[in-house]
């Protein structure tokens, strides 16, 4: 029997949970169709998470592209289909990417090894400076921190996932929560080990009474714990939190059945969500909003 997963019309980190919930009853080796025909919009998180979904399947799944030409064309320009065709049997009208997309700071890019992180950081620097200062009114000095943040979240894949993942960076206007303010969003998703399994592999680790995906996320994201004994480890995500805090941004990390978020005042997300439908690996999103006059001090 073939199971069909329907991708919601608007796909972001929140609505991706609808996809994961549908997936919860489908065994990893079952035939699967991911139906995005009626999807009109997707954030970089949504697109990279769909790739992680394809990566997680034991049997190659089918993927039906959005019916709306504009959407399909946009997804092509983000580089989504180029990677999706390696993971899915694609159906529907899949346009070829023509030209770059101005809102895409970094096309969806695979991250497997350390050199990929160099490539990603090198590619983003110049464009990031232009976008951050001109579109988001953020000090040009923030560009370096932005590239550092990107580097650290990508390294999470190289160091902990045990398999490759994808990164995408994009700007868009956030109409609901931020009253038409621009945001820049980094999304990094993989279907690898995830935080709990990574921390469990630490040598000599003593398990506490409460040990689950949420506890693992709290240890890694809030307390900077790493699976490595090296005391210098675990600073990357702490640095990401510092950068995000300085620019009134948001970072969220989903892994397994939990999601943790550092939530700024402009957002109403929940800091810790537990007992979500399971999804392998780690999915990270960093959001930096446009700076407005009278915004919080740095």
């Amino acid at each position, binding site marked *: 029997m073939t199971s069909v997963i329907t991708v919601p019309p608007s796909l972001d980190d929140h609505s991706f949970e609808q996809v994961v919930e549908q997936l919860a009853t489908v065994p990893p080796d079952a035939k699967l169709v991911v139906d995005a025909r009626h999807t009109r919009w997707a954030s970089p998180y949504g697109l990279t998470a769909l790739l992680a979904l394809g990566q997680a399947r034991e049997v190659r799944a089918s993927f039906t592209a959005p019916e709306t030409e504009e959407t399909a064309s946009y997804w092509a320009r983000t580089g989504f289909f180029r990677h999706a065709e390696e993971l899915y049997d694609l159906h529907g009208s899949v346009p070829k990417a023509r030209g770059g997309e101005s809102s895409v700071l970094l096309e969806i890019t695979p991250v497997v090894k350390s050199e990929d992180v160099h490539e990603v950081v*090198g590619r983003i620097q110049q464009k990031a400076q232009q976008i951050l200062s001109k579109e988001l009114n953020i000090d040009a000095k923030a560009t370096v921190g932005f590239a550092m943040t990107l*580097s*650290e979240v990508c390294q999470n894949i190289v160091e902990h996932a045990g398999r490759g993942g994808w990164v995408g960076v994009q700007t868009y206007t956030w109409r609901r929560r931020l009253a038409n303010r621009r945001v820049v969003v980094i999304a990094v998703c993989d279907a690898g080990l995830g935080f709990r399994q990574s921390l469990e592999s630490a040598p000599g680790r003593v398990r506490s009474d409460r040990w689950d995906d949420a506890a693992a996320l709290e240890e890694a994201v809030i307390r900077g714990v790493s699976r490595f004994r090296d005391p210098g480890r675990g600073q990357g995500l702490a640095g990401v939190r510092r950068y995000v805090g300085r620019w009134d941004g948001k970072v969220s990390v989903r892994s397994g059945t939990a999601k943790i978020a550092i939530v700024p005042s402009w957002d109403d997300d929940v800091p810790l969500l537990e007992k979500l439908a399971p999804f392998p690996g780690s999915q990270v999103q960093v959001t930096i909003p446009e700076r407005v006059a009278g915004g919080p001090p740095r």
Partner: protein
Amino acid sequence: MMHIDVSSVLRQTLSCELYSNLVTRPTGAAVRTQIEALLADTRERSLTVIDFSHVGMIDYSCADEVVAKLLLRYAAEERDDREAYFLFRGVTEDHWDAIEAVLERHTLALVLESADGASAHIGGIVNDREREAWNKVYEMGRTAPADLASATGSPTADCARTLATLHRRRLLMRLDGDYVAVGGLADARV
């Protein structure tokens, strides 16, 4: 005095001219290994300028590998075989974010040359007494504990202890019982 251009080491390490950013932990480990290989040829007592002038950016993981681990191995550990001192040059505000974070994590400190090369100061984790003592030694040049005691009004024994601590952390050099600040060594023989 040895001069190590970190950007050149990075390019040699990656065998690639395209990358000027110090990012990722494996890259940092490789760069530090290369720096350590260069240091292996130095004398028992050495001063090395670690030059970041041509480094685009450095992330936390790389700062931990290149800066923190270098200091931990040569400046924070008690080593009988080697007295290695470092002066960090060309460290910009952009680099400092990551470097400061790793110094805090490991309770380390280092000596930074100012942008124009005309002066130096310490950065990282030092207490007020250590900072004051270092600044005085930097200002006065070759300094004995009694000289510092006169300058600060503190007991000589306390000054001797503070200077010994700064020497152990390789922020001051000891020359025949006197101390000289790293970065203020224009005439000192290293």
